[in-house]
């Protein structure tokens, strides 16, 4: 490793060659403002807010893009730098729709912060905001408001680099330059997975999730409606960030209380249907294995791939429409929940399903689209009436005027409120795989998976693709055909990595039996609907919290969840049975690639 020495604001520092000035400054806690920079993405160097002065150079340098050089003498806060930054922020403001008070990102906007920091005078320059820009609200999931766009291209890079979708692109030049969808089509007509990663990386209010919380308030206020809310595993480890907690704080109990105080009639847990997914999906996997290994059935597709991430599902529908047979037919936990809320739950509680409003609180933008898919009405009604993001939910808690930090901890209601640690870890990449293995291994061998504390660490972590294999030994008699089989599994997160997995499958070269794929980097804890900002450090803390939550659960295998046993006994009959088929499984649709 070659190192170089340079000076930043008078401090001498030694860094590895190739380190940018920005990174070097960070090491000595000198904060340089940025806008287009995002650590998940490649360097753009286009906003120019991060400029610094290098002594003996006339021009300033963009610290995010310029590598530190031996002997550089850098000033990050000289008069020259401050004046230039102020000009640049003023220019961005002059191009911006500055109606901050009515903006969804008000108080959580990077441009607003910088304008305040540099005390920008809004009258310094003339407004060059383009008149008559309309907001694209065509998508179920994402809204695009060009009047708020600062052209940093974070969204473009996100969609291209992390997701390999390329729904967004920089279009036109000069004063007409803008971020456009492919061919400038409405958002709902382009190939977009609705993952919302672009939304999560937008520094301003140009890209936001489509909001549905007003409808939810309305339902809560309607005495004739029975509102059931379910919250996804990853919401409880991120929601706190909206409400004054340190990143990585678990707020499960307070979250439950908050919902109750908001007037929600029944506070339930998506983790319950996560456990249910494991039972259905695990049985589906074992059935496929049986048909392939024992019966030699060539029509059965392996590897089987998880289907709980709706961004991933839409991705494969667009990009690999001829390989949909690999997807598990299981609905996502959200949609299983919706279908059961208006059947099983309604029946048990004696409530007319037409009066039930089911609301899902999700880390996700794609869940909104998923809830609106036409086929998601197997209960006879719209299974999920509204899907909200963690951010929308945090806002509702603020609107309700709750003193969140001082709420007591309470537990979810029953039925459909009980869950295991296996359900919880759905929120992190590798979690579905781990949960499935815990149960499948136990079903097949009657023993626990051979990992300390049930923690299947090989499938955990942050690598984009992780593979593991587990040798199945000591099978129970009915699973004898699996004796000695080396079960190959893989986990991928981020659609860029999903594509690698799918290319392998399409080429007939996949060696796996079972694959978990999540659209978002880090899985749901890094979902498009999670609090902003989200970055590697934040994802790591949320992940840690997820595994802590798992360890804290008395039951940590889905099949041991008593409410799961109950629902099969009292309602579903058996996994993959007739009712399951009607309510818990779905089909997919081939979509165009462009």
């Amino acid at each position: 490793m070659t190192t170089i020495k340079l000076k930043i604001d008078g401090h001498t520092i030694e860094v590895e060659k190739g380190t940018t000035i920005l990174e070097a400054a960070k090491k000595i806690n000198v904060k340089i403002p940025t806008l287009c920079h995002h650590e998940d993405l490649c360097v753009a160097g286009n906003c120019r807010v991060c400029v610094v002065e290098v002594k003996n150079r006339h021009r300033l340098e963009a610290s995010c893009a310029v590598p530190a050089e031996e002997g550089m003498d850098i000033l990050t806060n000289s008069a020259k730098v401050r004046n230039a930054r102020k000009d640049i922020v003023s220019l961005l403001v002059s191009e911006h729709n500055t109606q901050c008070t009515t903006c969804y990102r008000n108080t959580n906007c990077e441009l607003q912060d910088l304008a305040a920091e540099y005390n920008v005078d809004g009258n310094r320059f003339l407004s060059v905001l383009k008149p008559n820009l309309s907001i694209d609200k065509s998508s179920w999931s994402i809204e695009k408001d060009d009047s708020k766009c600062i052209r940093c291209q974070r969204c473009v890079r996100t969609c291209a680099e992390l997701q390999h979708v390329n729904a967004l692109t920089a279009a036109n030049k000069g004063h007409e330059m803008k971020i456009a969808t492919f061919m400038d089509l409405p958002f709902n007509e382009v190939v977009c997975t609705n993952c919302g990663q672009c939304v999560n990386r937008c520094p301003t209010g140009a890209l936001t999730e489509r909001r549905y919380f007003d409808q939810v308030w309305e339902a809560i206020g309607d005495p004739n409606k029975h509102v059931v809310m379910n919250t996804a595993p990853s919401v409880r480890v991120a929601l706190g960030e909206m409400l004054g907690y340190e990143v990585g704080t678990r707020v499960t109990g307070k979250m439950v209380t908050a919902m109750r105080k908001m007037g929600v009639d029944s506070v339930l847990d998506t983790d319950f249907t996560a456990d249910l997914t494991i039972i259905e999906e695990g049985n589906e996997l074992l059935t496929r294995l049986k048909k392939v290994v024992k019966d030699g059935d060539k029509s059965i597709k392996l590897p089987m791939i998880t289907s709980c991430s709706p961004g991933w599902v839409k991705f494969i529908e667009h990009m690999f429409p001829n390989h949909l047979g690999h997807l598990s037919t299981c609905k996502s936990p959200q949609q299983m929940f919706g279908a059961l809320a208006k059947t099983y739950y309604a029946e048990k509680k004696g409530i007319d399903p037409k009066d039930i409003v089911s609301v899902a609180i999700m880390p996700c933008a794609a869940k909104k689209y998923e809830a609106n898919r036409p086929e998601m009405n197997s209960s006879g009604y719209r299974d999920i009436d509204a899907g909200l993001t963690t951010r929308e939910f945090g806002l509702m808690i603020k609107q309700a005027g709750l003193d969140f930090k001082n709420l007591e901890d309470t537990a979810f209601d029953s039925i459909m409120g009980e869950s295991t640690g296996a359900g919880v870890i759905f929120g992190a990449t590798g979690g579905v795989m781990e949960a499935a293995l815990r149960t499948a291994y136990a079903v097949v061998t009657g023993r626990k998976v051979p990992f300390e504390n049930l923690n299947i660490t090989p499938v955990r972590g942050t690598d984009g693709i992780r593979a593991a294999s587990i040798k199945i030994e000591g099978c129970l008699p009915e699973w004898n055909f699996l004796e000695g089989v080396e079960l190959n599994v893989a986990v991928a997160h981020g659609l860029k990595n999903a594509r690698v997995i799918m290319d392998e499958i399409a080429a007939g070269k996949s060696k796996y039996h079972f694959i978990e794929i999540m659209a978002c980097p880090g899985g749901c804890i890094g979902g498009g609907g999670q609090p902003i900002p989200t970055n590697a450090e934040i994802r790591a803390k949320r992940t840690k919290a997820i595994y802590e939550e798992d360890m804290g659960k008395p039951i940590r295998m889905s099949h041991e969840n008593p409410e799961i046993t109950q629902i099969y006994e009292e309602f579903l009959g058996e996994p993959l049975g007739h009712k399951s088929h009607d309510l818990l499984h779905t089909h997919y649709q081939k979509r165009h690639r462009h």
Partner: protein
Amino acid sequence: MANNQLKRVDIIFSPYSVAPYEILRLTMHKEKSDVINELIESGLRGRGGAGFPTGLKWKYLAAEQDSEKYIICNADEGEPGTFKDRKLLVEVPRKVFSGMAIAAYVTGAKIGFLYLRREYRNLIPQLNKELDIFNESAKKFGLDFKISIFSGSGAYVCGEETALIESMEGKRGEPRNKPPFPIQNGYLGKPTLVNNVETFASTSMICRIGADKYKALGTDDQHGSKLFSISGDSPKEGVHELELGMKISDFVEEFGDGDTKAVQIGGVAGFCIPRKQFETSIIGEGNTTGGATMIFNSTRSMYNVLHNYLDFFAEESCGQCTPCRVGTQQLLKGIEAVKSGKKPASYLDDLIKLSKTMQITSKCGLGQSVTNSFASIIENFREEMIY
């Protein structure tokens, strides 16, 4: 130090040598390092605008340890009022290809491209004929170097070398961050030499006449001769080869119409020199020499001239970086607002300051150079901006 008078030169359009690519053949008998040193010695600077010493650039490319290197001839010539590169490609393409081939010989590049401005695509058949002759000659001489033509995307900014490379890679024509420079990390991430059409033609001429003879032209500061695309209020519009180091007064005497009030040197990215500075200014010293030379007589409104420039910039900025994308719009709207009385005359000073910020913060030469014409026109013709 200025020449005493303006000297026309006739090097670059001189007739070809008898046998095709004879200069290339002869140069290939020389040591590579000798060729590079001769170029450095000649004092030739890039003719595309930035004025980087050509010999050094070649030396750097030659030093790069990569088996894959590229040579690109920049024929994007997107600036209004310039047409010298076109003339070279029409009249003496062989000199341009010779220059590229010599560069390939000394640097070890095997593939070359002529990045041709879209509007020039009607030249392609003719250029391909010349390339046939080139390929045959190269084969005969044992030089492993192929040149093909790449038809440009049509945007002015694609003439900027890194935007040009992006556009060749099929991406949007946006300038890249520098470093890394194309010499280290250019086309397809490989070491790449980008030179202007005239630069390549000049290198082949230097190889023919020798550095000494070339260096004898011009001043201590600027060696050799150069093509000027002259336009505007001139009875002698067109491309002229002139010795470097001339005084503007001499230039105006030769090319003006007797009523010249200002000369724009170095095209839209350059400076506007008012009459009162004609005696004391030397072309190429403290101002840039790429691009067009425009002559304005007293009937011209300098407000209109500046307005046209700003219109051009606001449209031709690639739009990626803030100071350039928004700054150009602000300058344009700003002078309109002063003219119409919506902003006080003192606002012009705010705008000049803004243009200085653009100079030190923009990502590429386009945004960085707007201040040249902007400040020089406003400072010298302030009245015309206000009334």
